[in-house]
């Protein structure tokens, strides 16, 4: 996207007014995530990631998404398992970190159902968002040079006009929609992330549309009491969705830990197509909304356990260890 075009888009489409953007997950997806949208999810694939919106995309059967896999883990894998993604730009995908490779994602790429259109490194993807956040066409960087990752990206290499040394130019990335899960936000979208921000400080400004999902909605006075905690100001935001435990089975720093039992079930079921369907039926198609899902994964008893785990009151278990 041309930076002037991107500026013009902001001028025309971004609300500067204090109006409530509070809506349901289903409204947010209907309004902002279309077939063939280029989407990016904040967080770290299974850490502080908006699984609530992932579920809703699947339930609404949005198709042919182009996915920014800038450390994508459970987010992209669910979408691929449900057939919502057709193309991927990859820094990290099709894996579950220490849990191993993701059967659903791997199968889709190896059979050609999902096409990998480009490769990046994490820093390269982050700096694509940073370039966009700064309203620039690209950023110079000293990563990916000399590798196949460079060749499969759309980066260029030029001579630095100041030093005459080679330097990589990383093109800006302006996603159609970004979805970022946060600890707290007000109804206007002022959002606070506790802990590491990963790529979200940049991603929030790079994206055209921005959906915030939040563990809790708080009054604006609460935000104004600690403005230094604000990662995202309201005028970047198009939708605010309140969903406690919205990152489950992912980790939400300071609130709840990974649900490794659930991951084990997911990774085991998705080894086959039948199992994948069974998972989607049980946990997504077969429930009305994310509250229904939270009941199905074990309800309050399970959620209390995950909160205790995050506080290190109990030892984690890893049922996927062979």
């Amino acid at each position, binding site marked *: 996207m041309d930076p002037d075009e991107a500026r013009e888009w902001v001028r025309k489409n971004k609300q500067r007014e204090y109006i409530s953007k509070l809506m349901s997950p289903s409204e947010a997806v209907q309004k902002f995530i279309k077939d063939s949208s280029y989407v990016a999810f904040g967080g770290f694939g*299974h850490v502080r990631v908006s699984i609530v919106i992932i579920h809703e995309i699947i339930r609404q059967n949005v198709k042919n998404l182009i996915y920014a896999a800038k450390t994508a883990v459970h987010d992209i894998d669910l979408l691929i398992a449900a057939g919502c993604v057709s193309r991927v730009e990859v820094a990290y995908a099709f894996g579950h970190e220490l849990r191993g490779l993701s059967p659903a994602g791997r199968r889709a790429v190896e059979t050609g159902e999902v096409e990998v259109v480009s490769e990046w*490194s994490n820093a*390269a993807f982050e700096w694509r968002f940073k370039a966009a956040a700064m309203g620039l066409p690209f950023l110079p960087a000293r990563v990916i040079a000399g590798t196949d990752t460079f060749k499969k990206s759309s980066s260029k290499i030029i001579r630095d006009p100041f030093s005459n040394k*080679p330097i990589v130019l990383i093109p800006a990335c302006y996603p159609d929609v970004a979805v970022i899960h946060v600890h707290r936000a007000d109804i206007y979208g002022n959002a606070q992330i506790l802990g*590491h921000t990963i790529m979200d400080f940049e991603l929030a400004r790079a994206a055209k549309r921005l959906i915030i999902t939040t563990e809790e909605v708080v009054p604006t006075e609460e935000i104004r009491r600690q403005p230094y905690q604000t990662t995202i100001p309201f005028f970047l935001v198009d939708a605010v969705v309140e969903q406690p435990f919205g990152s489950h089975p992912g980790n939400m*720093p300071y609130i709840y830990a990974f649900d490794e039992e659930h991951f084990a079930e997911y990774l085991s079921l998705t080894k086959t197509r039948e199992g994948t369907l069974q998972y989607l039926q049980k946990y997504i198609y077969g429930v009305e909304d994310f509250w229904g899902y939270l009941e199905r994964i074990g309800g309050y008893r399970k959620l209390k356990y995950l909160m205790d785990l995050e506080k290190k009151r109990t030892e*984690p278990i890893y049922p996927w*260890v062979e």
Partner: protein
Amino acid sequence: MLTTYSPVEMMVAAAARILEDKKIVFVGTGMPIIASIVAKRLYCPNLLIIFEAGGIDPLLDRLTVSVGSSYTIDRAIMATSMDYVMSLAQRGYIDYGFLGAAQIDRYGNINTTVIGDWRRPKVRLPGSGGANDVGSLSWKTITIMRQDKLRFVDRVDYVTTPGYLNGPGSRERTGLPINTGPYRVVTQIGVYGFHPETKEMMLLALYPNTTLKDVQENSSFKIIVPEKVEVLDPPTIEELKVMREIDPAGIIIPRR
């Protein structure tokens, strides 16, 4: 129970002994985390551990499933961003980068993207993640991985992370920061470095139960063998104890 040890434990101990005190290490998923914690506990109390998602110097008492989880900011000195820590690396603050790999070649080039053809892969792997950045920007890169003929290959199927690319001078010619590159490769057979002139992989040390024959039998390219090859001590009781403490579930360190 602690008098015997597994190949993985030997690898982790060998890797932990490479790291230095008062330095900064940027760690990848899995074995690099365990080895760095062992090093910090036993040998370099002032080793500073950095994670790609923005965790700086957490007080780790457990292996973490993710390099972006709560553990990576647990009692840390800073919880920041990918941009911040990657910029630190580009600025020259990272002494050691510490990675895993699926395939490696004689120049230390690493593949974690695909086995087979990129368009229609036999096995699709996760891709670079932060590995390319760590391998591009750290002063010294350590790789820890299993060694066999399919992993130590003449040409990697895909260069995800740069080693010495095509040999001496090629990193600099392509614009990567000068004086950086692969430093050590740790496998279940031994510890390797890179020849100062040719930049080809070179054996540095064996373990008590591995031989020169194992080295070559488990590599598709010829590994340089210098006149003097060290034999490392087996894992100490303390090293084994720390490994089991931080990985009580046996995710990396197998239970017996």
